[in-house]
């Protein structure tokens, strides 16, 4: 992201991989993630940074978290659903099994696990909810 911001916002994927001494394969998950969050656009092998991406790249540690939270809630339906489900509960708490069962209707067991794990990581980082691995409970982070 920072390299992109430095290089005028648009760069060839291969060139970017080169710059980072990474294989394109290794770079793709990061690019996909950034694209999902609306920080990048990928078109025909070129990557373009968006204004949100620009802000993220230039922000400090705290600013990045805020920008990430906004982007995650805007672009990741699962996280938005999780936030709404937690808000709907009077104790602001749900067990992870609840979300796992929801995902299970659409995905296989492994994929559901993976999706939930990623969502929990992101949700924690974005301070949408807290997670207790011992009990499996998700609790809405109070503002």
């Amino acid at each position, binding site marked *: 992201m*920072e390299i992109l911001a430095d290089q005028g916002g648009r760069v060839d994927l291969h060139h970017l991989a080169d710059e*980072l*001494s*990474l294989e394109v394969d290794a770079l793709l998950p*990061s690019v996909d993630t950034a694209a999902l969050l609306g920080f990048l656009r990928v078109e025909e092998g070129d990557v373009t940074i968006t204004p949100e991406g620009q802000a993220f790249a230039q922000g*400090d*540690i*705290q600013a*990045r*978290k805020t920008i990430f939270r906004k982007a995650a809630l805007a672009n990741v339906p699962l996280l938005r659903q999780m936030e709404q489900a937690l808000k709907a509960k009077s104790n602001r708490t749900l067990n992870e099994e609840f979300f796992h069962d929801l995902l299970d209707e659409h995905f296989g067991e492994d994929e559901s696990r993976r999706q939930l794990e990623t969502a929990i*990581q992101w*949700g*924690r*980082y*974005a*301070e949408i909810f*807290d*997670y*207790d*691995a011992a009990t499996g409970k998700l609790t809405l*982070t109070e503002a």
Partner: protein
Amino acid sequence: MSTANIAPTPIIEARQLEKSYPQPDGSRIQVIAATDLAVYPGQIIALLGASGCGKSTLLRMLTGLSPASGGAVYWHGHPVRDESPNVSIVFQSFALFPWLTVLENVEAPLEARGTPPIERRKRSLRIIDAVGLDGFETAYPKELSGGMKQRVGVARALVVEPEVLFMDEPFSALDVLTAETLRGELLELWLGHKIPTRAIFIVTHNIEEAVVLADRIIVLGRNPAHIHADFKVDLPHPRDRKSAHFVELVDSIYRILTRPDHKDAAAPSRTFGPGREVRPKIVMLPHAPRRTCRPLGDSCRPGRPSGPSSPCG
């Protein structure tokens, strides 16, 4: 606390510090030759050297973690044996307590120092916030990625507000992107004065990492370890890896490291920075002291044209 002004008194000073291990035949293996080294406030110092050359051993002696075989370490002028230096270390392997949560890991050193629980909690939460870990307070290390684990390592080191922060290859167990992010965050904390730490001492074998971070770079030669070059880096932050000065400096350090026994082949003859000539403080030994030191007399003749790493025999 500008990096341009060096206070006259060092925080830590090593005088003739050396390390050797006894052998069964009565001789000693010299790991670190007698070394003088001072850590001044306001600097990030990078200690660069090839793997296994003694960087970590030197770091451990400077922190008082490992006893010296000769010489001494002074902490504000007092021998480290009498004082308990206010330092902390970030390890390459993170070295977190797997049975403790993030918050408990960060609180641990305060607990060990007898800080009252409320104060402990307050300080820990503050530093967790500063390194971007909030949201993960209740997570256990196994739930975290490498980058997040090392953020815990950094938070745990910083929570005691160390005067000197020691880092032993802190980013080398991470993938390149994560390592670069963490370097940026460390600089953000340091340059933005978000931490009260007065100096950072980072051990690394990554030349670019040293040049990205450090105000001063010490290159360690090997067999036994000795200071091979010691110079200031005046490039302004953020440093551009593509700038001519940056590339020039990386190249010259690379030459020093790969041809350690050639006296002056590649020593930077001045301080690196945009234009300014500043006193180059370069310590070059005429030749590398040899590996095994018997009581007086060494079969190795110095000055022999020898390859980079050819040992005695």
